[in-house]
């Protein structure tokens, strides 16, 4: 069995969830061939082998620096053909998921997204998917010989199992028609920690009373190397950009630690955070529903508690 893993990168750096996809493929057994597209830092590519890839293909054409979904799908299909790959594994993302769907249609593969655990094979090839926005799981049997799986963060444990492997150039045929969708420009906050990938997330709600009070939250995030998020009302009111909105209709996060400050905990917000390992809620209203979903709670005024928390974290380092 050969499994192709799509390595997603941003600014020359490989995404951590892509390394999880390599670890996932490695745990499934068989040969693992990783493929990276566009310009990527060489040490980054070398590291892919440590998580279990037996070979890394690199399509370095600068035309691939802009991730056009149709183009990426065509390249992955060509790589699957060349390597006679049975499976494609990648991380769920705004790029990976649609690319995976296209590959699945084209190759006749069974497809599952939002996969949270390694497959079981005792009665058919079965994966566990997150459904109802994290409120439940389903076990689905993938019946086709070929399989395409898009995994959620934390679906596989990241551990170094092998050595660095050499990178093999890959030169796909690029079809002009695939470039018909043009990326005009990209607007991205490049310095911040990516919210979907962050290990710690600090989120603020209406309890912070206004965008001018976000400095405190950002300081806490900086102290913890965390990403910042917010509730829906906060992004609706324009206090924070939409890509920070955590919840049912926003970003779904799965960090080790989620700290909610001044967020009451509407069920739609909880849907975005219920995959977090540990939830801390700070709210001045002791009856805020979020406390029921929390691991730790502090009833208190955010403007008093947060500075104390920042000081306590600094003191403990």
């Amino acid at each position, binding site marked *: 069995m050969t499994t192709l893993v799509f390595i997603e990168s*941003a600014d020359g750096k490989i995404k951590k969830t892509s390394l999880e996809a390599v670890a996932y493929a490695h745990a499934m057994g068989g040969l693992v061939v990783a493929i990276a597209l566009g310009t990527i830092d060489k040490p980054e590519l070398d590291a892919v082998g440590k998580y279990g890839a037996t070979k890394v293909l690199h399509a370095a054409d600068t035309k691939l620096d802009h991730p056009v*979904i149709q183009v990426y799908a065509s390249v992955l299909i060509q790589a699957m053909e060349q390597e006679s790959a049975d499976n494609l594994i990648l991380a*769920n993302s*705004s*790029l990976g*998921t*649609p*690319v995976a*769907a*296209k590959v*699945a249609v084209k190759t006749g*593969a069974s*497809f599952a*997204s939002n996969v949270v655990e390694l497959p079981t094979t005792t009665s058919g090839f079965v994966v566990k*998917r*997150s*459904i*109802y926005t*994290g*409120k*439940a*799981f*389903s076990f*689905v049997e*993938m*019946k086709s010989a070929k399989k395409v799986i898009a995994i959620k963060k934390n679906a596989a444990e990241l551990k170094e199992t092998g050595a660095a492997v050499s990178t093999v150039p890959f030169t796909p045929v690029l079809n002009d028609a695939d470039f*018909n*969708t*043009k*990326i*005009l420009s*990209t*607007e*991205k*906050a*490049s310095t*911040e920690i*990516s919210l979907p990938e962050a290990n710690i997330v600090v989120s603020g709600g209406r309890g912070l009373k206004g965008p001018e009070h976000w400095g405190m939250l950002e300081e806490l995030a900086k102290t913890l190397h965390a990403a910042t998020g917010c509730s829906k009302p906060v992004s609706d009111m324009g206090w924070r950009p*939409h*890509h920070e909105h955590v919840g*049912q*209709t926003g970003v779904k996060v799965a960090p080790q630690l989620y700290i909610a400050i001044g967020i009451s905990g509407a*069920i739609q917000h909880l849907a975005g955070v*219920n995959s977090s390992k*540990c939830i801390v*809620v700070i709210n001045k209203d002791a009856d805020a529903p979020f*406390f*029921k*979903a*929390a*691991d*730790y*709670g*502090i*009833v208190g005024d955010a403007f*008093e508690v947060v500075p*104390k928390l920042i000081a*306590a*974290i600094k003191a*403990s380092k």
Partner: protein
Amino acid sequence: MKILVCITHVPDTTSKINFIDNNTKFDTTGVQFIIGPYDDYALARAIELKESSGATVTVLNVGLADTEPTIRKALAIGADDAIRVNAVPTDSYFVASQIAGHAKGFDLILMGRESIDFNGGVVHAMVGEMLGVPAISPVMKLDIDGTKVKMAREIEGGKEYVEANLPLVAGCQEPIAEWKIPNMRGIMSARTKPLKVVEPKVVENSIVAQKFELPPPKGAVKMISADNVAELVTRLKTEAKVL
């Protein structure tokens, strides 16, 4: 211009999720069904385009007869006619195949970025692939200029501005348009708007849901005094081991 809006019929976002029949079936007891919230954004944008440029709007749903009240609501909001593909929407590939079978002749195919029940998030990409047209998602802004469509797509930590030609498929999300609430005239006229029921084309399911599971219940919250914030840091380090 002809617009097709594909809608899902899903449990309200506040629904409590339960399963019956040995965890093989979703328990609909007491559950209110709605148009998928993302689909609602797609529909709202389609109605705006209808109002500004005289487009026609057809809604399509893959579902059994119990989804018709949801389809009528979409007609009440302003869609002109509807198609119901008479089948259980078992998986993304099946649903995409049904949509692709009815999408020819439409210039713009809109739907939500994902359904909020199975969260596949790929039907738009699959439909695009099946029809051989571009598919863009999640789209936060969509403007049409002749045959060109300019869109803003949300990516991790930002936005990507893309341009593609009609026909195309777009998976929508906020703030592409404001949700529309049906008015009385809309509700009255929806009753007589055409709703065509068609049988599904035969597609073999390549994935099959065997059973469902709820997450393990959460332990009780541990409350810490606001006067003793340092204890929280200690507990996060030694007890929860997340710092």
